[in-house]
């Protein structure tokens, strides 16, 4: 969108703001901060560290699966690795990374001085390191950490779990508190803090997608809290929510969990859609094709996400009518998603394209996310899902949408806005190495999973039949290569934080439009103390 701003100007802002606080020094800056940029940085670094920790666990999984047979870890430890890998990547890496981006970008994009509730913002962040400290330390208690999969299905998490389940439950509780407060902050900021003239349909798509994501978060995180509470009482206090002997039902757990879980997967992809919708127009040097339809498509996906949860449960013996309903409702989601992919491609159509690093990641996102979307469509078809269910095909599907989807979009976003944050261009050579190594290795890693999955290799098992050995060797090699590629990213980020690299202009990218590109690079500690007027 071209939002011509009548800018009061940073000079005026600085003159007025001389007695205004800059960034305080030392550790207190980070512990006590109320600044959305500081909190955004904290979130992003935390997410990246968790990404490496969760990635290390994936390396353990792939090392064990390099060859058939059990050789490196005990099966129970393998289960803990798959479980904690999933929990960390979902709640510790992807969600905090998006929240970090929201913190950095939403106030700058809508012309607000900060997030609406800055102290609560700090609280939301600092809960997270403690929550994951609890989760990770539960790996070391007697009997081991959670080993029931990130979905913690009953009775695995009730009858058959270790004592550390109690720690798992309470760490999920405080993660949920953090997410809910973060989401409230985003919604209130967008509702209440837009600069004059920033009408709803002028908002950048990243803001729109995050607004809708925040609705989803507030609606479903409390349901997750309810689910873990019932697991806690079933395991420790003798209730029978998920036990048929007391009139409950283990399948009920899956209904409650996936009522949270399905909107949750859109929580992890809608902000990605927003990011891609910001990046593609910049490097195609064209306005986004179909802005309004993008907004409506995002809202439709969010609404549909509440009525598709049982497509994760086709093999639990639901009545036929339910299977049909959830199959068709799920397939319906491909309509608004298709609208989005079409719009991105149409935006590039006859554009003056250049291929800077953010654009490379965005293009890889479109292609690879679409592969994940199509395999999702296959999984949505009830009769064939009976074959695919709980195989590596499912693993391939959700890693295409989450790694080459969500994670690639986060990397695209970091490369796109990093020069705005630091005021300097990142190391482009390293970035291109990072992109190409990641792109190739991620496909070596996840693409063969489709084949072994279709052939029937079950997920979450530390051993497999000999027929899958060759593919698994390649999958593991791809996995190690993808893991190593992220160290390039780490090196690049450290260089960027040390203020190395050439200074960039305010606009940074030639085709970039929006409020955040009109303020100086690096973005001052406080922006838009006086709201800009958007015409």
């Amino acid at each position, binding site marked *: 969108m071209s939002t011509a701003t009548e800018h009061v100007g940073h000079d005026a802002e600085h003159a007025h703001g001389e*007695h*205004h*606080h800059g960034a305080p020094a030392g550790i207190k*800056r980070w*512990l*006590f901060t*109320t600044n959305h940029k500081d909190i955004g940085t904290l979130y992003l670094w935390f997410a990246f560290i968790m990404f490496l920790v969760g990635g290390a666990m994936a390396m353990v999984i792939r090392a064990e699966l390099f060859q058939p047979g059990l050789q490196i870890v005990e099966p129970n430890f393998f289960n803990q690795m798959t479980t904690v890998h999933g929990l960390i990547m979902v709640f510790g890496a992807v969600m905090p990374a998006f929240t970090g981006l929201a913190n950095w970008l939403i106030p700058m994009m809508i012309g607000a*001085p900060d997030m*609406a*509730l*800055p*102290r*609560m913002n*700090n*609280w939301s962040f*600092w*809960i997270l390191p*403690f929550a994951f400290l*609890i989760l990770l330390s539960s790996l070391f208690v007697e009997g081991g950490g959670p080993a029931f999969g990130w979905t913690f299905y009953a009775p695995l998490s009730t009858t058959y779990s270790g*004592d550390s389940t*109690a*720690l798992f*439950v*309470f*760490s999920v*509780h405080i993660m949920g*508190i953090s997410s*809910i407060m973060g989401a*409230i902050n985003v919604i*209130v900021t967008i509702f*209440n*803090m837009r600069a004059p003239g920033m009408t709803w349909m002028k908002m950048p798509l990243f803001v729109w997608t995050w607004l809708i994501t925040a609705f989803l978060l*507030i*609606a479903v*995180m*409390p*349901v997750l*809290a*309810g689910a873990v*509470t019932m697991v806690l*009482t079933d395991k*420790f*206090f*003798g*209730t*029978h*929510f998920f036990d*048929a*002997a*007391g*009139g*409950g*039902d283990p*399948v*009920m757990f899956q209904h*409650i969990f996936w*009522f949270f879980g399905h909107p949750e997967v859109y929580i992890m992809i809608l902000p990605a859609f927003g990011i891609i919708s910001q990046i593609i127009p910049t490097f195609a040097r064209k306005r986004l094709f179909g802005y309004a339809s993008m907004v409506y498509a995002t809202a439709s996906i969010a609404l549909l996400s509440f009525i598709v949860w049982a497509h994760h449960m086709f093999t639990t013996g639901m*009545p036929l009518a339910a299977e049909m309903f959830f199959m068709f409702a799920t397939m319906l989601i491909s309509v608004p998603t298709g609208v989005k992919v079409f719009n991105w491609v149409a935006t590039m159509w006859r554009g003056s394209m250049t291929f800077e690093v953010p654009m490379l990641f965005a293009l890889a996102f479109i292609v690879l996310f679409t592969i994940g979307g199509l395999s999702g469509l296959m999984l949505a078809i009830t009769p064939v899902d009976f074959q695919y269910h709980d195989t590596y095909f499912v693993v391939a599907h959700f890693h295409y949408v989450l790694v080459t989807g969500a994670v690639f979009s986060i990397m695209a976003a970091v490369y796109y806005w990093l020069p705005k944050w630091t005021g300097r261009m990142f190391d482009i050579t390293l970035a291109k190495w990072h992109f190409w190594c990641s792109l190739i290795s991620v496909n070596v890693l996840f693409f063969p999973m489709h084949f072994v999955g279709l052939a029937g290799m079950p997920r979450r098992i530390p051993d497999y039949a000999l027929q899958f050995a060759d593919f698994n060797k390649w999958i593991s090699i791809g996995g190690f290569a993808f893991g190593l590629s992220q160290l390039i990213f780490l090196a690049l980020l450290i260089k960027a934080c040390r203020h190395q690299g050439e200074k960039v202009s305010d606009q940074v990218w030639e085709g970039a439009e929006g409020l955040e590109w009109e303020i100086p690079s690096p973005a001052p500690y*406080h922006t838009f103390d*006086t709201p800009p007027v958007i015409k």
Partner: protein
Amino acid sequence: MAQQEAPVAYEKYYVPDQSPWPIVGAVALFLIAVGAGNFTIEMTKGKEGFGGYTLAAGLFLLMVMLVGWFKNQIDESMSGLYSAQLGRSYRQGMLWFIFSEVMFFAAFFGALFYARMIAIPWLGGASNNAMTNEVLWPGFEAMWPLVSTPGGIQTQAMGWMGLPAINTVILLISSVTLHYAHVGLEQAKRKQLTVMLGVTILLGCIFLGLQVQEYVHAYRDLGLTLQSGIYGNTFFLLTGFHGLHVTLGTIILIVLFFRVLKGHFTPKEHFAFQAGSWYWHFVDVVWVMLFFFVYIL
């Protein structure tokens, strides 16, 4: 510093300086989570440990944090730092928080409906589950309230007459009295405000006392416990979480009462009062739902 410009009406959006309270709150939640987790293990598995103390320390720290944080905000509010826009932020934030609470209760209501409408009939052989009943749970008949579980636990149902009906009336009246307290605040009728608020607090306490009696009755006379199958589970978790919310609401109202005595609120500016009153009305609505779906139907 932002505050130095203060006492005049502050129209710019007030972005607070650094604050120590959020990190104190994060540490408090950490202690609560670790403490509650370990306390649960120690209590149910008969182990020794510091779970209970850690939990208590966390709750204490959370109290310290709330007092410190709120004092901070009251001071800012009283010195005129807040704009109308900030008031809207607080109000919207509170409403979305209440919405998240609604969804928390929705999870437990969902469990109640699922058990009643689907799980229990299926265990009794409904739909295409004749063999489930025949082979796994022979002789089990679907019913609600589930006073005899497939596993053979016997209990008695809690009727809706008597205490629950009285409690419903009490909570409904408390909503009305709180509303008139609010009206008193808006029309600057101090006496109406304090009396009505006081009556609301009293009704809240009576409600909680009667709830305790009802639980004693359930455990002693009816044999209805947390362990007595899905009926007891949904009964105690729904009414229990509701009771916790009434407790919290009563504490909020007591704090508001003392702030009223100190003259903190004006007919136009009283976000804290409004938020507390919204919370109380929400808790009432949840009770009405509970009364219908847990007790009557």
